[in-house]
């Protein structure tokens, strides 16, 4: 379980985190999304004990993380840009982490080796970026972590390896109740693996919900209204577009509530479409002043 309360962090004059709250339940796969500069990497660096907060609380399994070796020993962290020592081989890095993490599992390391198929004698820095990421997963999952924190984890991985990595990770979650926090811009991918989502903007949490609840909180409707009729009042419309008589609207609310209200306009045609996480992200942030701008160049 990861709990972040009223977290504030400033870099000089820039307030990167502004009273941020995050709650990641145990065993959850939590997708942390937000625009560039929202503070996702900064909060991750707090959760992994790298940065010290100006104020607020950062707890994992009920304990403060900063300078807490017992907690940090249970966290595996894969940053966007993984650090490896110059000329270190996979084996060297394995030995280094094995000495650091008491639960490092050599059997698991061996079995995962078959999944990734990378020679342990290979100098890591000479591997491709994608293969370096694979090594990071290989080592992280060998630590038998209780919490996994991933920052843009599958960047550089090919589709097959992405699927492979997610399978291994999700089986860990299923078998051991591992808590996973993922920061990514690949919302399509997050949608497949996450059960909780938090949308950050300007150092604050905008929305944090179970993914299903989040998807149910917005409704995408296509409808055609009779001549002279307009969309009824009383709807919290985030976005509306028109193509001839066909209107597409994104409305905050439950499906039943929204369709009920729209029925008052006697639509000639009405259809409720599924919303993707990407659409939720775009329209929610659009409401917060981060909309896609229609610019003609």
């Amino acid at each position, binding site marked *: 379980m990861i709990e972040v309360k009223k977290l504030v962090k400033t*870099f000089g004059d820039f307030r990167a985190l502004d009273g941020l709250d995050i709650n990641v339940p145990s065993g959850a796969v939590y997708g942390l999304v937000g625009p560039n500069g929202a503070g996702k990497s900064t909060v991750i*660096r707090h959760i*992994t*004990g*790298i*940065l*010290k907060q100006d104020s607020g609380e950062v707890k994992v399994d009920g304990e403060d993380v900063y*300078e807490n*070796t*017992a*907690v*940090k*020993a249970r*966290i595996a*962290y894969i*940053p966007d*840009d*993984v*650090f490896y*020592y*110059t*000329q*270190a081989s996979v084996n*060297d890095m394995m*030995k*280094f982490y094995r*000495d*650091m*993490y*008491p639960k490092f599992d050599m059997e698991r390391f061996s079995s995962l080796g078959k999944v990734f198929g990378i020679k342990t004698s290979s100098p890591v820095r000479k591997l491709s970026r994608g293969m370096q990421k694979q090594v990071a997963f290989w080592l992280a999952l060998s630590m038998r972590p209780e919490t996994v924190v991933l920052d843009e984890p599958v960047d550089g991985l090919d589709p097959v390896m992405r699927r492979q990595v997610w399978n291994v990770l999700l089986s860990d979650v299923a078998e051991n109740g591992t808590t996973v926090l993922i920061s990514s811009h690949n919302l399509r991918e997050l949608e497949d693996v996450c059960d909780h989502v938090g949308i950050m903007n300007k150092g604050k949490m905008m929305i944090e919900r179970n993914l299903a609840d989040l998807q149910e909180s917005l409704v995408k409707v296509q409808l055609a209204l009779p001549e002279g009729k307009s969309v009824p009042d009383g709807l919290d419309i985030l976005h509306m577009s028109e193509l001839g008589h066909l209107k597409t609207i994104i409305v905050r609310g439950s499906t039943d509530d929204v369709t009920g209200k729209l029925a008052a306009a006697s639509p000639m045609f009405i259809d409720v479409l599924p919303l993707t996480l990407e659409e939720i992200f775009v329209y929610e942030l659009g409401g917060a002043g981060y909309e896609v701008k229609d610019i003609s160049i």
Partner: protein
Amino acid sequence: MKSKTSVFDTGIFKNLLKRFWPVFLVYFIVLFTSLPGELARPSNGLGYRFSYQVLWQAVTGTKIAILAGAGAAMCMFSFMYTQKGTGMMASLPVRRETVFVTSYIAGLVPIVAVNVIVFLFMLVYEVSQGAVYPGFLFTWLAAVTLADIFYYSFASLAAQLTGSLIVLPAVYAILLMTCTVVEECFIKLFDIFLYGYAPGARKLSFLSPPAYFEQKVTVESNDFFYDYSSIKPMVCSFKGMGVLAIYALIGLLFAYLALRLYRKRRMETATDIVSIEILKPVFKYCLAFGCALAASDYFGGSFIPENAPNIEKLAFILFVMIVSAFIGYFAAEMLIKKSTRVFKASWKGFVPVACVLVLFCTLLNADITGFEENIPEAGEIESVEFDYGNTVLKNAENIEKALEGHRAIVRNRPENTDPYGGPGYYVIRMTYKLTNGKEMRREYTLVEDETAAANKAFDSAINSREGKHFRFEPLFGITGDTGYGCNINVNWYDVEKARYESDYTYLSGDQFKEFVYSCLIPDLENTSLGDAILFYNEETGRKLTTIGVDIYEKNAVVMDAASKYMYMQVSTDARHTLDWIRENTDFIIITSAENDANIPVSEGWATDGNAVPVYAEEAIID
């Protein structure tokens, strides 16, 4: 199982050693080349020069430690200078104390190990050669190791102050030398603005260890006979081990301070020029004032004529300092902000810098402390020392003469004159020792014509009987007539060969007694022999013959007490001395009465007018 309270982590230690062993190999090669390598040369080896060489290599080792310390710290703390490296290290389940202590030890242990390996190699070499002098080698090991501890610890502290690996060596070098450099810059400023300013012993050199070690860490030998054929090592000793030990202890304190800083370090400061928030303005203002001082030192020394009017000096120095401070201030601001767009937001911060510089230089130029006019009262003075032969005068009459000269200088302070363009000049440095225990120093460059009153007063004081007795105290102090011998050497300018010549001979027994008691002492007492010549230049140099007298205990093999060497200018009225030399030695002293320009002996700057005629012919004195 790993202890939660452990401050040492084997994994990090092994990892650091595995990655950075080539750096320590380089250190080993350098040390190996400097010690065993040096001794392997045919001219050195285990004979007479062994002790001297080993101890000097210890001194050299303390200098190599400057680079070794910096190199080791750069390697061990390199993880702090990239976001990736910092992130990885900080996310490990290891406490910060553990990371620091392990990294610190991982740098120190290989350095000390290299020292021990070189030491053991030398010991084995000695044993194989059948000559064992472990004392010298232990001294080498101790000195080099203590210096390594200090410099490495200091570099570890410097490493905490910055977030940039490239900046670290600069921070290290600046902090090591900054106090000495700043002191020199202030001395230069005082010298420019305060007439008569004379710097005393440097007070801050102990804050610049390389400069301080240069003064304090050395090798001394009283063995003057240089018997290179001897297999017994030269008698010599290493000086400064205590200083090195104290600095090593201070180094450990620095290491502790570095640990405290590392614990507080914000990991996001990786790549910042200054990694400690409160030090950012300190860095900015130090760089501004540092640039101003450095520029005043460089341009003040190179571009301002000494005789320039004070107002011109002030204007020039202020211009140079403010421009340099401006550059330093905004360069620092750009480095801190990592942007060139800093003028608009931070120009106000430069205003106090400029004001301080204007105020400081103006007040200095105005001499608000009354430094230039300050002359002590005779009653306040215990003694006055002149640089000429370090003559110290305590006699009230001579002190009054010195004061008379000093007052004449202040009264007749030359304005807008170039001391180097006149017929002659000299620099006089005088130090009053006051009855209250303080010292007052003054230094003046005097032009011959314009300060005649001062010149005569100083000459009279310096060449007084007291002055000569002080300068030639060893001669006057000889008691008994046996047990001493001396070397005398004569130096003169050979007009025909147009070069300086010298010759020497050894006197003992009756010859020594006769020369000292019947010639030198009477002539020193009664003639201008041994007078200090204030105006010494090429012209006076060519008219100068000096006698050097080196007195020591006769038959001494190794002199525990240093020999007492004096030299004196020969004057034409030193008849006893010159006659004796002519009759008893085979020195060639060229004299010519026909051409006064070729007189090789000083006429004495202030003789009593009774100088005897010079020798009438060029002669070989036999």
